[in-house]
């Protein structure tokens, strides 16, 4: 999955930023490996007095033991680590081309060490069988492989960060309309999508936590939703949105379909997977335009439309599952509670985190660095020193 994200993001940004984006992807995985093992896993799957809200044990877990169901804890940890890495990588893509390396690195540590594990505890805390389940799981919230827990969490963290960060230089014209910034290489992005698609087989199939025929069904449903998301986004964009940003929408639609089905790939049928794929593709297109044109949120890789909006769509559409054993209206309400809880938690904590980063290590690089490409050493120069005549000119204005 990390390789796929790296290719998608590097292909989407401008050429001068590809190295910094690639490096951030590498750093994401390195941070995830260390921080999730030593800290995040405990908050997510531990027990303690705050169990249900937050785990407080299982930091640096003993790997030779087993979780409930007999699965080795080390295997479970590795699998969950990949989910955590996905959440953080979503943030790096969305905020690329203007976020400093040090603040990003710091944000990654906090995301994978706290924001994501807490959300994960609410929905999945009981998976390891160490303690009772989280409060969302107790309500009956269903998110099979993380449409909300993994994908939306990353997207909403990005949303908070982007509101604070502002758009890239040159992104909007004088009327406030978004100007297309040249992608480095769309073909490279498509390779990334296909790598991610393959990774999704492992994510969704692996979420069964066992190998049986049902894994194949999960993978087939996943494929169908991804394919329908891609086709729906393409035709919707072509015939209803004048083909604007059609490459971004085709790519985002495919990923959106994969994100959408992730919440319920194990209980949907191929037919309902088609519905989820189509819905995700269309929702993606509207969300893409809403974010860039109306809200002026400059998401460099379209991550929020894909992971946030399609994640929410898929989570709500769990209720159409033919194999689901629940009351549809009640379940829809519970799913809505889960979607909103994720939104509020992720945006609030990320907002606080990014505000603190801005006050301490800074958040945005200098315009010069943004123009030339972000350096991982964070070397930036101040704007030019004024000349005396310029200050005199200003003083004349004041009189």
């Amino acid at each position, binding site marked *: 999955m990390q390789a796929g994200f790296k290719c998608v993001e590097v292909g989407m940004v401008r050429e001068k930023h590809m190295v910094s984006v690639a490096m951030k992807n590498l750093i994401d995985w390195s941070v995830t490996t260390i921080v999730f093992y030593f800290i995040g896993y405990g908050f997510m799957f531990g027990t303690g007095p705050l169990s249900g809200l937050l785990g407080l044990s299982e930091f640096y877990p003993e790997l030779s033991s087993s979780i409930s169901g007999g699965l080795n804890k080390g295997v479970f940890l590795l699998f969950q680590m990949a989910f955590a890495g996905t959440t953080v990588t979503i943030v790096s893509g969305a905020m690329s081309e203007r976020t400093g390396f040090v603040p990003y690195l710091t944000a990654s540590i906090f995301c994978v060490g706290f924001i994501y594990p807490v959300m994960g505890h609410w929905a999945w805390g009981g998976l390891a069988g160490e303690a009772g389940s989280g409060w969302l799981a107790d309500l009956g919230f269903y998110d099979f492989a993380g449409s909300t827990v993994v994908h939306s969490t990353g997207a909403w963290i990005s949303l908070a960060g982007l509101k604070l960060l502002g758009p890239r230089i*040159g992104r909007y014209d004088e009327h406030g309309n978004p100007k297309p910034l040249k992608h480095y290489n769309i073909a490279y992005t498509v390779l990334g999508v296909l790598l991610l698609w393959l990774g999704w087989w492992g994510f969704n199939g692996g979420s069964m936590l066992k190998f049986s025929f049902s894994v194949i069904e999960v993978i087939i449903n996943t494929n169908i939703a991804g394919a329908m998301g891609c086709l729906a986004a393409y035709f919707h964009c072509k015939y209803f949105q004048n083909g604007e940003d059609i490459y971004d929408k085709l790519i985002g639609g495919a990923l959106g379909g994969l994100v959408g089905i992730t919440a319920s790939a194990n209980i949907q049928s191929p037919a309902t997977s088609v519905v989820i794929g189509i819905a995700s593709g269309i929702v993606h297109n509207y969300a893409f335009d809403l974010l860039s044109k109306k809200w002026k949120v400059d998401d460099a890789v379209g991550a929020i439309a894909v992971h946030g909006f399609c994640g929410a769509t898929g989570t709500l559409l769990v209720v159409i599952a033919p194999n689901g054993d629940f009351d549809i209206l009640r379940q829809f309400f519970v799913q809505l509670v889960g979607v909103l809880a994720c939104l509020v938690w992720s945006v609030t904590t990320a907002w606080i985190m990014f505000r603190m980063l801005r006050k301490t290590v800074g958040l945005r690089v200098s315009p*010069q660095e943004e123009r030339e490409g972000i350096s991982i050493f964070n070397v930036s120069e*101040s704007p030019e020193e*004024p000349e005396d005549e*310029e200050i005199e000119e200003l003083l004349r204005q004041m009189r």
Partner: protein
Amino acid sequence: MTRIANVSIKKNANDYKLYTLSEFKEDFTIVDRVQLIQKGAIEFIDFDGNKIKLSEAIRLLNQA
């Protein structure tokens, strides 16, 4: 014709904030602007993302 799209303000040693021209005019008085220029903490940017020379930016601000 050059026009100001954004104004980048250096907030502290490591952080910059990007304003649109209208936000900049709303948020910064003429006194603030002088102080920012004196500190070398301001940069004006055109719609192509290029830096505008300070003297040119002041002239444009005057005209606006």
